[in-house]
């Protein structure tokens, strides 16, 4: 094969692999599904598929928020707390004031609370230039304390009517020989949000600014990006997305528990990193993140079907995170070598 053909083939391989290894991830996901289906025919059914989609909805929305933060070179561990804070406070408010502003109204209240909490994160990070992990670890504790002491610590079994009404809505429902399969309506906002975030990241200056800041904040400042303002907005948006995820979580769970969600942050971060987002910032895509979330869900699901105790599932996710980061590091090393080799190919020997 001559150099030109080689580089063409490499080009195709490279394109399929995607900027963040999305192609590789898709193959792994596919292989896992095929493998599971052969091992356990109960896996390959519409029921399981819809169940995996359903359990991915909240994770996916969280993951989109985490993706934005990670691209900008930060990390956020407070999103789950913000989600439960915003959603529980909204439900609690509506319940104690005996006031139901409807689904949209509820969502608006939750988004406002989430945005405000995000603003706290963003203001501290942008203003004092503190490490994002430390800040969000701190605010996570503070938010949780405020929620449990001042707002409420009780489990609420009945959601306000406007939320409860959506709880049982499906986009799609059929009865198959393996049982009833239904696709929850909340999959729609999740998909729309994916498309929106993907578009913003790719096609707006705000989105490109996030990549630029993640690549080199000082260079971004010198290029005229308003780094502080963009950072604030990032955390506000993540807070709002978390709040939306919180409301959706409660709708699908048909109850509001102020102690839920918190503790699952690692799964989300692992999914985003597996999806090709660089922990050093500047890289990541919505497609990769979506695949990462699905992969983590499928693995969790497979482990349950295989009867693995849930403690081991945590181990599996931890391992996955390490593998994800390791593969990234190796791939980065190799691809820079390949590129050099290709460039050298062009020099007449």
């Amino acid at each position: 094969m001559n150099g030109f053909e080689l580089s063409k083939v490499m080009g195709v391989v490279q394109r399929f692999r995607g900027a963040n290894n999305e192609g590789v991830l898709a193959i792994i996901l596919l292989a896992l599904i095929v493998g599971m289906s052969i091992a356990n025919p109960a896996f390959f059914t519409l029921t399981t598929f819809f169940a995996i989609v359903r359990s991915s909805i909240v994770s996916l929305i969280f993951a989109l928020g985490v993706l934005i933060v990670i691209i900008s070179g930060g990390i956020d561990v407070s999103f789950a707390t913000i989600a439960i804070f915003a959603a529980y406070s909204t439900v609690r408010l509506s319940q104690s004031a005996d006031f139901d502003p409807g689904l949209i109204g509820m969502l608006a209240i939750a988004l406002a609370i989430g945005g405000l909490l995000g603003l706290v994160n963003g203001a501290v990070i942008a203003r004092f230039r503190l490490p994002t992990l430390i800040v969000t670890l701190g605010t996570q504790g503070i938010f949780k304390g405020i929620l449990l002491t001042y707002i409420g610590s009780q489990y609420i079994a009945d959601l306000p009517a406007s939320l409860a009404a959506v709880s049982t809505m499906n986009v799609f429902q059929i009865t198959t020989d393996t049982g009833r399969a239904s696709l929850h309506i909340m999959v729609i906002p999740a998909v729309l949000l994916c498309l929106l975030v993907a578009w913003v990241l790719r096609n707006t200056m705000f989105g490109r600014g996030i990549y630029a800041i993640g690549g080199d904040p000082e260079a971004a400042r010198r290029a005229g990006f308003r780094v502080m303002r963009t950072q604030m907005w990032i955390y506000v948006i993540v807070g709002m997305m978390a709040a939306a995820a919180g409301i959706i979580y409660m709708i699908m769970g048909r109850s509001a528990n102020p102690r839920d969600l918190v503790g699952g942050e690692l799964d989300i971060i692992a999914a985003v990193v597996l999806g090709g987002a660089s922990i050093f910032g500047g890289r990541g895509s919505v497609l990769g993140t979506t695949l990462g979330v699905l992969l983590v869900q499928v693995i969790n699901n497979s482990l349950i079907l295989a009867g693995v105790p849930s403690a081991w599932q945590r181990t599996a996710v931890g391992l996955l995170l390490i593998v994800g980061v390791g593969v990234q590091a190796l791939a980065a090393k190799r691809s820079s070598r390949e590129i050099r080799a290709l460039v050298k190919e062009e020099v007449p020997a």
Partner: protein
Amino acid sequence: MTSPTSTYAQAPVLQVRDIVKTYGGVTALSGVSLDLVAGEVHCLAGENGCGKSTLIKIISGAEKPDSGEIIIDGIAHTAMNPSAAIKSGIQVIYQDFSLFPNLSVAENIVLTAAVAERKRIYSRRVSRPSAKAIVDELGLTLDLDADVVNLSVADKQLTAICRALVHDARIIVMDEPTTALTHTEVERLFALVETLRGRGVALMFVSHKLDEVLAVSQRVTILRSGKHVITSPSSEFDRRSIAKHMTGRDINDARVVSTLAADTPIVLDVEALGLRGAYTDISFALRRGEILGLTGLLGSGRTEIAESLFGASPAEQGTVRVDGEVVSLRSIDNAIAAGIGYVPEDRLSQGLFMEKSIADNMIAGSLDSHRTRWGGLDTGKVRATIQRLFDRLHIKAPNVSAPVRSLSGGNAQRVVLAKWLANKPKILMLNGPTVGVDVGSKEEILDILRGEAAGGMSIIVISDDAPELVASCHRVLVIRQGHLVHTLEAEDITVNTILERMAE
């Protein structure tokens, strides 16, 4: 090119007045004033750390001055900010490039312009043609879709240049834009500078290559230790007088080489070395205490040969002997174990931990040679080494615990050199050891290399700076398209022969 312009009468586009800037206790600028006029190239010259980049950052709004003012079109500002500066038509090529490593070349080129136009939507499809246009105008072969992180230093520099030129700027400031470029690329850049000047753009240019300064500029301002020394038309200067104003003394770039006895042992013996696509059949010997030049155009294979000897991209054919023993150089560890050191080309990104102190950086590569008998660190010895090198290399910094990020470009470079000298390798290869170093320091660095060689170290200098090779090398190997085409010795080593052999 140096035709004096009749634009002096014209009102300056940009003036800075009495700029003072201090960092902690260090005074970077103490009351500097200068002006830029449309259709004129104004050169800023001075030793490493005299404040050139600081002045540029103040003009571009990346730093705020302690006092003084910046006057643009007659309107005085106490400080600029990056967006305001870009909006008033100022474009800067920073010494450290300030590119986004994670984005493609095309996006790097167009992104700042899009920010300046306050665009909200970004479209790859629409912005790519303007990136391509500027790359073509400069006659470059940059891969627009490559990520900047994977580029060579030269391509990064070209990307930074394209980015500044893609704007319709009225004022273009270039902070050492040619450090990594080949002669042809420099010529193309200068041709473009001339076109821009014709269009009435005001340019400011910083370089340590005095020939470039004289070739491209109409006026020269010289700074020394943050103070203004002189501003005059460049026709009134020559290399010698600029160097004298910069350093306050006469600079000597005469050829000074030690004589090597005929029976001096061979330290490094390279035989028929080859690497597909990079170089073939390279054989040479390096003797104890010898300084050997390795030259050639960019892309000739000179850097790859050095990288192979350092185990970074191992050779596929040939044998290498160190002190007569065959060594296998499959990895950097192998090379270091064999006593080979390498100061890479892309020092600012490969050689240094920017946030760490000068001391930490200096000692990072040689901890093993500073151990006590018990394996602990011999702190006394460490401190002595650090202080010795700090003094010897004349690094301009308050003390050894200053972070490398706070150093000027040329001083950061000396830290890398110190790091390798601390390691005392048998064979030290240096890729462009004086790129970005001022004339005075260049002489000092060459003197340090001569001293190390006299002390028994064997040195390979990879460079296309002919005067530097002439000044310091016993022999010069010329590489062309991967082949060793000439070995110049003794009186054959002159600036002209080197340039001819390289390009013929």
